């Protein structure tokens, strides 16, 4: 709901400010590369993965700048420590480790004399009841065909504060937009939440078209992780709308960018008619 209101409001103002865009040569400062930790532990097999990378200069290419040679472990609240091993440079995995809701997990990354730590509670998963498509009445796809969005339906538990993140795949392609929701305005309700995204680069592969297979993952996340993604999408995506861009609020200690999230995953699939 919050996203809906935000997107539509921005769209409304943007429409009245028709402007012309041009790529320009802008001299940006370079800085010492910083570590980025992206740690994920889910309740499903193969869901344990930690990415370690470094920031790059703006003019560099977008390739993942993975850092090898790190010692990465995840510990549970019974003092069991599980090592993760490097598969590709910068990607550390433990294919057998799965998390259990209600437990807190500890991430530890040691690299080049630095240590980054974080802990995160895996909250009980909220079931994803169903997903369906809704036509957008405000915008069409670039080629004029109707634009469609997924709506997710779930029952928000009344007793707890809940934070959700949704990830959408269209024919296996992951949608870039960060889709978040909390229950600040919907506590204990049946929620039908529209997953809007702005296809700002007009990439037809992002649109949901007839015959496409659409997968939705629903994650019940910790408030610190919600805060991370909220601030990441609002102030670090470079969209120029925020008056004060800043680095997102991380739950990693030790001076790295990124986050560590232990969460449950619910999955639903549909084929667009």
């Amino acid at each position, binding site marked *: 709901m919050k996203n809906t209101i935000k997107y*539509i409001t921005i769209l409304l103002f943007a429409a009245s400010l028709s402007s012309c865009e041009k790529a320009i040569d802008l001299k940006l400062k370079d800085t010492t590369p910083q570590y980025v930790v992206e740690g994920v532990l889910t309740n499903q097999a193969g869901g344990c993965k930690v990415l370690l990378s470094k920031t790059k200069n703006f003019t560099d290419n*977008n390739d993942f700048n993975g850092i090898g040679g790190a010692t990465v472990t995840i510990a549970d609240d019974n003092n069991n420590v599980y090592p993760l091993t490097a598969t590709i440079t910068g990607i550390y995995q433990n294919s057998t480790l799965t998390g259990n809701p209600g437990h807190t997990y500890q991430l530890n990354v040691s690299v080049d004399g630095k240590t980054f730590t974080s802990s995160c509670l895996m909250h009980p998963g909220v079931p994803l009841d169903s997903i369906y498509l809704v036509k957008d009445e405000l915008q069409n796809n670039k080629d004029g065909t109707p634009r469609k969005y997924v709506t997710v339906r779930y029952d928000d538990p009344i007793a707890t504060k809940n934070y959700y993140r949704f990830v959408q795949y269209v024919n296996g392609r992951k949608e870039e937009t960060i889709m978040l929701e909390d229950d600040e*305005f919907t506590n204990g309700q049946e929620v039908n939440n529209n997953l809007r995204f702005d296809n700002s680069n007009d990439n037809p592969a992002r649109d949901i078209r007839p015959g496409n297979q659409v997968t939705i993952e629903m994650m019940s996340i910790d408030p610190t992780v919600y805060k991370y993604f909220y601030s990441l999408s609002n102030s670090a995506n470079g969209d120029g709308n925020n008056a004060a*861009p800043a680095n997102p609020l991380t739950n990693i200690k030790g001076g790295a960018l990124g986050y560590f999230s232990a969460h449950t995953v619910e999955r639903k699939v549909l084929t667009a008619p």
Partner: protein
Amino acid sequence: MKTNRPAWPSMLICEITRTPFRTALCLLLFLMMALSKAQAQGPLDKPVTITINNEPIKQALEKITAACGVRFTYNETVAKSTVKISVNAQNQPLGEVLRKSLAPHPFIFTVLDNEVLIKYDAGKVKKQAAAGTDGKYTVSGTVKSKQTGETIIGASIRVTDANFGTSSNEYGFYSLTLPAGDHQLSVSAMGQKAAVVPVSLAGNLRLNIELEDNAQQLQEVTVKAAPAGARDLASPQMGVEHLSIQETKNIPVLLGERDVIKTIQLLPGIKSAGEGSGGFFVRGGATDQNLILLDEAPVYNASHLLGFFSTFNSDAIKNINIYKGDMPAQYGGRLSSVLDIKMNDGNNQKFGVSGGIGLIAARINAEGPIQKGKSSFLISARRTYADAFLALSKDSIAKKSQLYFYDLNAKANYVLGDKDRLFVSGYFGKDVLKAADIAGINWGNTTATLRWNHIFNSQLFSNTSLIYSNYDYKLNIKQDVNEYNIYSQIRDFNFKEDMQWYAGGKNTISFGVNSIYHTIKPGEISATGNSGVISQSLQNRYALENAAYVTNTWKATDRFTLTYGVRLSAFTILGSGDYYDIDADGNIVGSKHYTSGQEVKTYINPEPRIAAAFQLNDVSSIKASYARNAQNLHLISNSNSGSPTDKWVASTNIIKPEIADQFSVGYYKDFNEHNYEFTVESYYKKLQNQIDYRNGANVFTNQPIETQLLFGKGRSYGAEFLLKKKTGRLSGWISYTLSKSERMIDGINNNKWYNARQDRTHDIAIVAMYKASEKWTFSANFVYYTGDAVTFPSGKYQVDGVTYYYYTNRNADRMPAYHRLDLGATRQLKKTAKFQSDLTFSLYNAYGNPNAYRIFFRDNKTDASRTEAVRTTLFTFVPSVTYNFKF
């Protein structure tokens, strides 16, 4: 002096008998004359109607004889006297006329049969001087335009034989205390022909002064004293810029809509918040630190259509003053500036209609007398029709979209007699932005002011105001089966009493009180459908803002003047509502409920204001001032250009009043016979309790807003230069500002000083107007300023396969410098006494410089392995034509 007393009974008679007003008035006048004739006994009772301007006494007496038939007897001393007298009598008894006109002179008169004996008496004037209030009397009245009857604000009234004068107040009232005797008053005002009025003071005198409109600007105005609209060199008031609406007429603007807020941004120290924003920055302050008053009513959002137009319709405006510092004590509540806009009163001489039709907007203005010469009304309306073009669009949604604003100004004034005047004025404006019934937002201001001017006596002027202001917005979104409505409002009830006491020649004391009751509805959301959103509203916030002030302008010597005073403001936060305790991370650690009307907290701030002027000579002066201001209403915004949905928040137990201390010094010089003016002002401003959003703040939340905020301090300093050519075919100005503005907020930028977004090192504006012929006027303006301080990425990284950006220091980067040239031309089409029309052409951004509205960063559209910086530009080459008429 003539009084209007008969008007009341006669009007009453009209009302009762339904007799036409004028007939009744004549009847009454006739009756009175008959009465006075019947009573006539001696020569001193004979009525006289005569005007004599400064003529030798012998000549004057002969004229009086010719006028009324009474003869005079006098000796040689009187006959040869060089004393000159002035007489201004309308059907007044001769005795009274003589008493007045001879009062300041060493002559006395007695009746001798049917004649009058005039004798020389050397002791009279001296005696009077010793006996009277040190021989001084007060001349007071109202300065008005002869053609329209509009009162004139800021007219200069100077005594030609002394370095002494005053200026009319915001209701055109002036009061001057002078020694008994003959004086000449030189009266001038912007856009008016200067006049010299003789006065002969033998008692307090009411003198209303009418000035002729100076329509023919080509005629060289030969005024030796400071010309109309000149900065007052003697007054300690500094940091003030004055614009009359005539001045804004020829300055080219975007889409041809004259706009006072855009025009003031061409003055030093006042900077545009950028294209697509209606806000402006004054001396490094934020946009919400400007107090914008329309006929004394605060206007909370002064822009239409996301800042392309100001809410002020130029047709309805009389006068604009902006105080950049050293705010007079009567104003308070904002840190950076006061923009005081006064609406026209309406023409009280004749009915007239004027208007204009432009590319995207049309406007119409009607005004006329209610009682001729005394009271009047004015109605002015505007509407844009840009959305008419949307209907031509192929896109079905654009076709059904709406994008427009309209506004309405209305005002009436009524003279209740010689000493009382009532004004009612109002403003209503609305913006509508709507996309095919799916999403829409509308927002607008409403203000209403009821004012009562009362003249207690020639030295004491009072104005009482009751004011209402309201700003609200409604957001409506329909999506699938869901509908959301969001509503927010800020509303004030405001009482104000201002008194001006012209206490003798040396002191002018202003004092008054102000009380505002604020109600803020931070937001309510109602939802229908299956989204699960529970309709709710945030608690209303209530506050009472009281202030009292007193200030004195003391003319210590001919050259040195001092203004000193204090404003005491008290902001009381009232229940009902919950107020919170919050820890350093923004988490709520406690709360307390207050019942309706219960005091939560009161912030008391004494705000001293002091200013001094030392006049070096007739054409130059230096000034210095210090002023403190406190601000209890804060606009919380995190978007780049401001939005109608930005939040107004009152001080709470956690949000402390913002405080600014400003020190300034200035040097002022007129040269080339007052044709040119040069000004330098320099300031240092210290700000306390500044507010910013936390990093990652949640803007859309039902949590207390304090949980999302951080607090700190600020400082700004700079120097402003202005060179202005005020007369001649070519007029205009060059302004340059060199400045710095910084903030230090706990929790931002590692608690180190950083540039405020509005920190602009250089800011230049050049404005030129050239009257080429009776038919053509050309104009141009050029602006250049350092780009805003912004935060650009210092690197990038991937999260979940998507590029995000890495930031280091807050606002350490710059937008590209902004520059633009606008051209304008006005062609007079027809000009008769009854009908005037002209065509105004303008070209905004004449050389099409692609100024950056914003810069954003993204993966390259064609090569996703690269990132790029993208500049968006709003306006390049915007031509317009507007047809204006008046009849």
